[in-house]
């Protein structure tokens, strides 16, 4: 869910960058030096997972996984997503340099919202509660991100309205799939490696 270079106006780019800098600073402060390797390997894995094609009808979608990142990382999602997007910009030219701020914000803010709302309940031992809330975290984060992308476009130029609506609509199936995958994934981790959910990635 990247917005390409050259699309957004300076106001949106600058606001996005400023907020992303603040979020990243908070995230880095909450990240101990000792935890850097651990968080980085997790972030590398998210990066790998986002390359998986998930079939959907005749086409396929990619996982975003910012909801799952939020559940693990809280504020540290900011620097992790910034790093991921920077790598994508350099390696594949997805997104770009001037859009790094706004793109990071659009993905990381929903992750943090999911962290505050769903973290406790998703890791709860009650199976139904955990399935339900981790689904919401996965789907909700994608929904909020698509909304944020739409808003970034509309704040740039009102004529983006029809396209913005389409972007949000297009993400509905992605939301569902992402929700399902995150819900199953959390149950998998609870069963196979519960220590991982308790691990303190964040100060």
């Amino acid at each position: 869910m990247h917005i390409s270079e050259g699309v957004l106006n300076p106001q949106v780019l600058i606001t996005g960058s400023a907020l992303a800098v603040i979020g990243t600073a908070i995230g880095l402060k909450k990240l101990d030096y000792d935890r850097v390797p651990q968080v980085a390997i997790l972030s590398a894995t998210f990066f790998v997972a986002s390359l998986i094609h998930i079939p959907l009808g005749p086409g396929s979608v990619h996982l975003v996984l910012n909801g799952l990142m939020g559940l693990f990382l809280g504020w540290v999602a900011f620097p992790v997503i910034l790093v991921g997007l920077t790598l994508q910009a350099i390696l594949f030219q997805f997104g770009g340099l001037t859009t790094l701020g706004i793109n990071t914000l659009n993905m990381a803010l929903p992750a943090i919202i999911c962290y505050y709302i769903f973290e406790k309940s998703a890791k709860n031992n009650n199976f139904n509660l955990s399935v339900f809330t981790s689904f919401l975290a996965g789907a909700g984060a994608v929904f909020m991100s698509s909304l944020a992308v739409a808003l970034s476009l509309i704040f740039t130029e009102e004529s983006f309205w029809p396209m913005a609506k389409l972007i949000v609509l297009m993400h509905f199936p992605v939301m569902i799939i992402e929700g399902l995958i995150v819900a199953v994934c959390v149950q998998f981790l609870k069963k196979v490696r519960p220590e991982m959910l308790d691990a303190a990635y964040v100060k």
Partner: protein
Amino acid sequence: MDESAAIISLKEIYFTYPRGKQVLEGLDFNFPQNGRAGLVGPTGSGKTTLVHIIMGLLKPDSGRVEIFGSRREKESDFRDVRARIGFLFQDADDQLFCPTVAEDVAFGPLNLGVPKSEVRKLVKDTLGQLELDGFENRVTYKLSGGEKRLVSLATVLAMKPEMLLMDEPTTGLDDKTMERLVHLLLKSNLPYLIISHDNEFLKQTTNRIYRMNKGTILDQVRG
């Protein structure tokens, strides 16, 4: 050997890794029906490459791959091969990815379209056959090395293969699991090809040894 009776027939196979190292240099190989053989050779001689080519995980640069009497070239040609040849990876951890043993064993049959109602029984039977009764709900990740090896064999046997390919199945096995594996292989009536460094194990389970050397194969029958 009569080539028409071969399950696997490779001709003039060349394979080079992206980094430029040529590992197979005009390799010819025929694996007979009902063969029970070992594949030996120094590390880096291309044994794993060879079996990956048989399973269609790697594509040779040139040469002819014929399996079960049909030429295999495209990805889709190998789907049938994979349903009929069971392949055991060197590292069981690379093979097992489901949370529970039952789900891992059921994965292959479900992919082959076996109805869910039958899969449950199939899982139970396969585990029983390997004396792993009651393992259904065990978490695969937490099994011991030997148990993981047997479960990964179960995931393969559940697909009712017509032949087995195994890459170093004895690495890290304790003596008891080793004995069980030998016993299971001998009592099965499947043909198999085993890559192994363990001569003792090969002596017990196979009657023919193929030796890889400089990208080709020397056939060598043992009495």
